[in-house]
């Protein structure tokens, strides 16, 4: 990507310095993998308006990690077990045909509250190591091991293959569930399958960004891209590009600063989102036209700069 040279403020030497450290290389690798995965899954999530479900699944990672610590198994297992179970629970209890949005969201909220309560209980039973709690909630970008990078890569590859296979019917079911159902697309099972996939993505992302900040990579790039363009292919690539730029820039800057990577990543992502919304708003206001040919070319340039 062309964004690579803008990794830090004073290019060249600093990039070399960053890459000299193994932990930074690992963090960049893991961050890039996560950005791609979260971007693609998050794009679908934003399209399907399942942001709240995604947020709840990201909260699932908290009891997952603290529960795993409590019974002494690797945290990764806990992440995947709880996020998977949460996805199934949301799919099972809130996906009913006759449910209104308010009822669905109430169910999702209840699931989330229960998960967090359990997580807090696990932390308390574990003995309340507060430093660990902060890491759990806000991530350990800079402490990623080689093994974790491999696991991340494998899970991402698997999830992307599944997402690729589901993409067409899922897009159909997301855009118009009734027509898709009439054409024989299994809307309900697709929805649950997507939630499980979302759970996987979240479980993976939250190991790096922490439970509370998963959303920076899951929702913000996708929301930005979909605000910029309505063309699915373009906005998908834009999502991934924004995610990568944000992760690289955030990690790079946090290396030279005392403040955590999570803050910079969310701040950059949000800044891009606001800039994109403002530009699109200005252009859209000037030519109040449904097709809006203008927003497609200028905003991406503004975004990457």
């Amino acid at each position, binding site marked *: 990507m062309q964004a690579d040279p803008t990794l830090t403020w004073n290019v060249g030497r600093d990039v070399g310095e960053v890459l000299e450290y193994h932990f930074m290389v690992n963090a960049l690798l893991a961050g890039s993998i996560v950005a791609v995965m979260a971007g693609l899954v998050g794009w679908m999530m934003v399209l*399907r308006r399942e*942001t709240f479900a995604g947020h709840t699944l990201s909260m699932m990672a908290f009891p997952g990690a603290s529960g795993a610590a409590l019974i002494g198994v690797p945290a990764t297992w806990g992440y995947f077990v709880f996020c998977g179970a949460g996805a199934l629970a949301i799919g099972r209890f809130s996906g009913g045909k006759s449910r209104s949005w*308010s009822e669905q*969201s109430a169910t999702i*909220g209840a699931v989330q509250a229960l998960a967090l309560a*359990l997580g807090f209980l696990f932390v308390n039973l574990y003995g309340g190591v507060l430093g660990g709690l902060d890491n759990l909630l806000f991530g350990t970008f800079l402490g990623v091991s080689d093994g974790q990078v491999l696991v991340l890569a494998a899970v991402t590859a698997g999830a992307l293959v599944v997402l690729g296979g589901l993409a067409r019917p899922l897009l159909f079911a997301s855009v118009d569930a009734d027509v898709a159902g009439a054409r024989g697309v299994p809307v309900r099972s697709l929805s649950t399958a997507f939630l499980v996939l979302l759970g996987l993505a979240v479980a993976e992302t939250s190991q790096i960004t922490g439970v509370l900040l998963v959303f920076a990579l899951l*929702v913000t790039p996708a929301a930005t891209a979909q605000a910029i363009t309505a063309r699915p292919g373009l906005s998908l690539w834009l999502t991934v590009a924004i995610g990568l730029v944000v992760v690289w820039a955030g990690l790079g800057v946090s290396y030279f600063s*005392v403040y955590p990577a999570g803050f910079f*990543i*969310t701040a950059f992502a949000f800044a891009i989102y606001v800039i994109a919304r403002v530009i699109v708003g200005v252009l859209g206001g000037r030519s109040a036209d449904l097709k809006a040919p203008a927003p497609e070319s200028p905003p991406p340039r503004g975004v990457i700069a």
Partner: protein
Amino acid sequence: MFSQEFMRNALLAGTFIALACGVSGWFVVLRGQVFAGDALSHVAFPGALAAAAAGVDERVGLFAATVAVGAGIGALGRTGGAGAGRGAKMAAAAPADDAAIGTVFTFILGVGVFFLTLFSTSSGGGAGIQAAHTLFGSIFGLAAGEARLAAAVALGATLLTLAIARPLLFASVSPEVAAARGVPTRLLGVGFVALLGVVAAEATQAVGALLLLGLLAAPAAAAHRLARGPFAGIALAGLFAVVAMWGGLALAYAVPSLPPSTTIVVLAVGVYILAAFMGRRTVMMRGGAS
């Protein structure tokens, strides 16, 4: 149990906070704003930490952050009652601005992390404990004055919600008709979310920023399942929340290893699960009869 002062304080503050959560939560669920409530609850965290970093009382930051963001969500959002009454399609029923809410509150959480670092570098230690208190609440740690103030504010929020209950209900159920009849739906929407911000800031002190959604959404959702009329529903939501609060406090007192925030939220969700099963049975019976 009642001979302990911290327990009396917790009960006093907890009862009114639960009441406020239940009553306003009923409208939150009705208006399909659970996600907005969730966002507000998370915003409480950076608010408290910013206040701590600046060296002022954390409640100032709590209220400032939640009320400001609440008014912002209310003003920006097109959510106002849009979800209520719509059925079936998930994509069509969800309000269109959920991605915007998610984006905004992720950023605010990021700012919270920033303040957490700032606070821990400036004051040395204590930041982790402060963060944990804000996120998960410390109802057993309330002093008598704090508890009285919390109870008074929560009672005020409850009464205010009840005072605007009729027009708010009208505006939530059919916004267009209400607007045509001269109800200021826009103002009501903004006012309600700002009020919700006050409730969220209160409840953060009791169960914490991360768990207050349980108190806000679960009793209200249970009441929506069981009660027919709106005012019965509001009463039931308040009742469920207070029962969960009392039960949770008693349970946490009896079993010291259980934190009160957990027991309160687990009981609240338990009530909801029970209500969901009972509601399903009545629906099935009704369906079978007709």
